[in-house]
């Protein structure tokens, strides 16, 4: 397929995934605060950190941060920005995605610009975030069931899973940025509340609790293990990266595991790096250090995908004339 089109597919999926994730984080944070007393300065800052915003100078109160992360068009990580970019990518390749996907995407674009949505935001915040989450969920479903499972679809999947791996890593890493008031707070209600919030932000609360926990006294390490390594959980880092590797193998037309392109090599490197570790290694190496490595590597993988598929160096085809001369000189 056309390199530029592949790039639009990849980014459309990433932006959609990003919007869903942001909505989930905001929603969880909002509901969580109802149950636990978390110090004010810790309530909303993590939300910014997950999106990689470290220089926010506005009011860190709930309404202000939610407004910034939902509506601010100048904030590239806000929900409206992510969805606007997703829709713009979709508009450019609307002949590539299925008509049904485009119509849904466009429907939500119009919805997001309607007065009705502002009302919903003000009157029923939880439902608003749920609707935003549903956009990506619905589009992913429509995509899988109405689009040919060819190259364009693979690039969409690739973008979705790479973004998801990155988001899970960032969400888990937020624990590093929230300092508990006192060391004694480890294992307390507040500490537990953080872990639950992280699980819920990744939609992992139920699946996590359905698993037998090795050491119930250490929820932190169990949650980290689950979100990094659990291959059955669709948002775990390992699961997402394995999916990325599979997509890249399908795109390259090579059997899974054989690395041919720079993109294949970069993704395999990270998967192998994780495979060589378990949760104990991660804790001793440092959870933050591990997650930083994962996030940095997803950037490198993105660059490798870019140079392999989106802006590849063009290997010029030999012209018929040159071929002829070569054959001739060989025969002489």
């Amino acid at each position: 397929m056309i390199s530029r089109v592949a790039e639009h597919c990849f980014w459309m999926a990433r932006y959609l995934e990003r919007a869903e994730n942001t909505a989930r984080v905001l929603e969880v944070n909002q509901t969580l605060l109802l149950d636990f007393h978390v110090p004010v300065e810790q309530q909303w800052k993590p939300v910014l950190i997950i999106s990689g915003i470290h220089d926010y100078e506005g009011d860190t109160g709930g309404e202000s941060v939610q407004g910034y992360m939902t509506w601010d068009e100048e904030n590239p990580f806000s929900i409206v920005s992510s969805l606007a970019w997703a829709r713009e990518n979709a508009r450019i390749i609307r002949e590539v995605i299925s008509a049904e996907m485009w119509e849904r995407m466009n429907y939500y674009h119009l919805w997001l610009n309607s007065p009705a949505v502002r009302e919903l935001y003000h009157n029923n915040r939880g439902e608003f975030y749920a609707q935003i989450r549903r956009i990506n969920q619905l589009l992913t479903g429509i995509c899988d069931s109405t689009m040919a499972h060819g190259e364009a679809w693979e690039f969409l999947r690739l973008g979705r899973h790479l973004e998801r791996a990155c988001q899970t890593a960032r969400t888990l890493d937020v624990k590093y940025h929230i300092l508990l008031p006192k060391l004694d707070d480890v294992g307390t209600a507040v500490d537990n509340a953080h872990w639950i919030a992280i699980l819920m932000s990744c939609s992992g609360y139920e699946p996590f609790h359905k698993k037998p926990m090795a050491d119930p006294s250490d929820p932190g390490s169990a949650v980290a293990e689950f979100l990094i390594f659990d291959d059955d959980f669709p948002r775990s880092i390992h699961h997402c990266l394995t999916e990325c590797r599979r997509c890249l193998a399908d795109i390259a037309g090579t059997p899974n595991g054989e690395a041919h392109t720079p993109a294949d090599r970069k993704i395999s490197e990270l998967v192998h790096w994780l495979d060589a570790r378990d949760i104990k290694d991660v804790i001793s190496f440092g959870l933050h250090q591990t997650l930083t490595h994962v996030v940095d590597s997803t950037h490198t993988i993105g660059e490798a995908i870019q140079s392999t598929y989106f802006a590849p160096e063009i290997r010029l085809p030999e012209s018929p004339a040159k071929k002829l001369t070569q054959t001739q000189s060989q025969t002489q």
Partner: protein
Amino acid sequence: MTTATRSEGQETRVAKVAPRLFDGYSPHPTAFDELFEPDGSPHDHCRTLVEKLGRLAISEFHTRRAGADLAFVNQGITFTVYSDRRGTEKIFPFDIVPRVVPGGEWPRMETGLVQRLKALNLFLNDIYHDQRIIKEGIVPADLALGSKGFRKEMVGFTPPGGVYIHICGTDLIRDQHGEFLVLEDNGRTPSGVSYVLENRAIMKKVFPHLFQDCKVKRVEDYPHRLRDALRSVAPAGAASPPTVVLLSPGPYNSAYFEHSFLARHMGVELVIGQDLFVHDDVVYLKTTRGPQKVDVIYRRLDDDFLDPKAFREDSLLGVPGVFGAYRAGNVTLANAVGTGVADDKAVYPYVEDMIRFYLSEEPILRNVPTYICAKPDDMKYTLDHLGELVVKAVNESGGYGMLMGPSSTQTQRNEFRAKILENPRNYIAQPVVTLSTSPTWTDEGVAPRHVDLRPYIVTGRTTWVLPGGLTRTALVKGSLVVNSSQGGGSKDTWVIENGS
């Protein structure tokens, strides 16, 4: 109470009936009406349509109308107006009362359009080769060779299959007597066909039963016809089937929706300039699996912007070297380069003579009488009658650069007088033709509004005409300007078999 009302008789009951769509419709006093006879009864071929549609209560009509508008908005069938940072997407106003072309008249129109197209292609071939038509004094040399659309780079070159105008959108109008006349030929990159197809799709959703009752000719074959036509004129050595791409100026072009729509329905790749490159006079597409050779380019980019190496150097939209590849015979461009000379408004008056000259036939479709300001007598007549004529700049389209004499001010007339005197070659004038009207929904209910018709003619090894075409309608009362850029709307066009 109910009984009492009933007992009072018929009149009360009639008064209680909701108003119907065509109640009180009065046709235009002078224009030909597309649905009704002057006495208010429907034309024979429109009887079923008028009867069925006429049963609709106004409120029901509103519901359908809102449904159609919503469908356009939800599907993003829009054009973009860049007045702010993100751009505002707008829908073209769409009127759900169809415009009808009688099935009995259509075959003659079809033959007339094919005849005209054939002559235009022969003219282009002649102009870029022997120039017989100039040598024999039929078309003045300075008019043809001095046209902005004439490309000296095309001289001596024959495009694959000998086809110049693969896609033509010929604008027809219907005069007071109901006769179809050709207003202009669009042989460069005519647009609008996606609206024909989308209008139809939406009408089928809004009025499914009407289609069952009236025998309406299909329009849905257009994208495949076009794709097959383009494949049929691929250069020698093309892949089988040939690789066709649609080259768009890009997502910020106002017609991007149409480009995307056509690519989707033709099953070809939609590309922008940066997706293509030329190496050793061969055009390649940049794909995830490396370069792929391209055989046919359906370009929606004007000649000027096509190739910065051959034409405008500052074009960032084009493909450097593509014209060289074309001249080397390695790629087909549709439409060919240099077709603008055939749809130049100053060359237009000679098309009837072209038909006689190349085909030895009488033109089936007639032109609107035209005064060519390049001719001293015509210029004098034009200047003397500015208040009665429509004056048009020959290289403008979209309703720009136009003087509508009867509704003009003295200042506007003075301005045009000066312009004509300064550059006579740039102007033509025509008598004001009262365009036919078609019943259209307005704020005052259904009222007559002027319409034109743009049929689309597709040429590969053979020529095919899309049944009907795009009906554009002026939405302002009395206005004769139907261009979308001037606030016009569109309608679905039905070629209805007679007697249905």
